[in-house]
């Protein structure tokens, strides 16, 4: 039995770049269940917040602690970037790559990757170069690649930005499946409909700070702060 990862506790966590504070200081405790959706205006620090929680943004202060040792935690999480990063190799090898990194034999890795490709409707494109895929296909590939190690936590940074309705639905379907199977999702989005469909809890981010944090139902029914209600109404929040 693997150790519990949650709660994730951030204390006064801070990310700075060139002397400017991008995110933080943040005090946050994330529990082990459900889907957290990060919302907020452009430039509020959603991406940086996700990257910080994932551990790929260098922290300028504070601490970030998983319930299990850091090394173990790193192995058990994955990240889907806003613009999917395609490795310059065929689809199947893109999806299999994370498995290869942890020493899964090539044949088995390719087999599991092929199954995932099937699941995201890329089953007949296994040997196509990933760089030649369309935007929606790329994002699905990135999702499959992130999920192939069966992470306990999956971070997603606006995975459906600039995708059409069908591609968005395909991705949401997969997300709901893995969430139901117990994967913890932490995802940012600009699509409020999507936020309402997926969220169990909401983090409203403004100016690099967590402005409001609570159960999704309550947040969408009646935000506690004027900025959040302005944001939900679609007003411009400065």
């Amino acid at each position, binding site marked *: 039995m693997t150790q519990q990862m949650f709660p994730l506790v951030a204390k006064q966590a801070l990310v700075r770049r060139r002397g400017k504070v991008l995110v933080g200081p943040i005090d946050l405790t994330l529990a082990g269940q459900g889907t957290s959706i990060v919302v907020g205006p452009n430039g509020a620090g959603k991406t940086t917040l996700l*990257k910080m929680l*994932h551990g*790929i943004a260098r922290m300028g202060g504070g601490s970030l602690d998983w319930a299990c040792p850091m090394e173990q935690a*790193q*192995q058990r999480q*994955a*990240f889907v*970037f806003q613009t999917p*990063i395609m*490795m*310059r*190799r065929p689809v199947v090898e893109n999806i299999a*790559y*994370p498995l290869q*990194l942890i020493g899964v034999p090539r044949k088995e890795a390719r087999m599991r990757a092929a199954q995932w490709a099937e699941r995201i409707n890329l089953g007949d494109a296994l040997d*196509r*170069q990933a*760089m*030649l895929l369309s935007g929606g296909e790329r994002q699905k590939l990135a999702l499959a690649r992130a999920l192939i190690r069966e992470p306990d936590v999956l971070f997603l940074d606006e995975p459906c930005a600039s995708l059409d309705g069908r591609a968005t639905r395909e991705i949401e379907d997969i997300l709901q499946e893995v969430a139901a199977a117990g994967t913890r999702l932490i995802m940012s989005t600009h699509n409020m409909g999507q936020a309402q469909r997926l969220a169990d809890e909401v983090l409203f981010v403004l100016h690099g700070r967590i402005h409001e944090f609570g159960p999704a139902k309550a947040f969408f029914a009646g935000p506690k702060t004027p900025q959040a209600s302005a944001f939900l109404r679609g007003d411009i929040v400065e």
Partner: protein
Amino acid sequence: MADLWDGIAQAFWLLVTLDRDLVEITLRSLRVTLTALAIASMIALPLAALLAVRRFRLRRVTIAVLNALMGLPPVVVGLLVYVLLSRAGPLGVLGLLFTPTAMIIAQVVIIVPLVASIAHQSLRELWSDYHDLLISMNASQVQRIKALLWDGRRALLTAALAGFGRAIGEVGAIMVVGGNIDHATRVLTTAIALETGKGEFAMALGLGFVLIAMAVAVNLAIHWLGHTESEGRW
């Protein structure tokens, strides 16, 4: 103008009759340069990837030095290798001076900076694409380097070809350390220099055309083998 035509005719005859000396020095040219290229690539390509992936204190300086060394004068390299390998030099006991091995060493020194610089340039771009992904996946330093070298292999081929071009046409260094000894260290470029010195322009030109044709042929062969231009490949 007459010399040029004579040269073309000479080259034609040398090729058609498969002149034994010509075949010998051509093969030696190829052997020396391809060996040097293989060794240089084994040094330069991982070095380029390491410079792209790893942040260490002397990284910028190393890159600047490599770039500067791209313009290393071959004859000076030849001189340095000569001093190292000469009987009285530190590596004199090996008895390598005036052998093809000495020529290989000199060419490796000349092309490592060139291959490493060009390779680093393209791997750096690839790394800026891959950076977040590989770090997010927890790839180790070695795994990152491997991924860059494999996925960037077509760009690396270009770097290697540039190295080949510089080495195959190089005369200053191999003349000094090889000595242009008939049947031992004579290669196409040194033979051309010799024939020109003797006033045998037609022969020199003939050899020159053979050299150019060979360089083009090797490039085409490598491109063809690597499917560089075929559709949809990277």
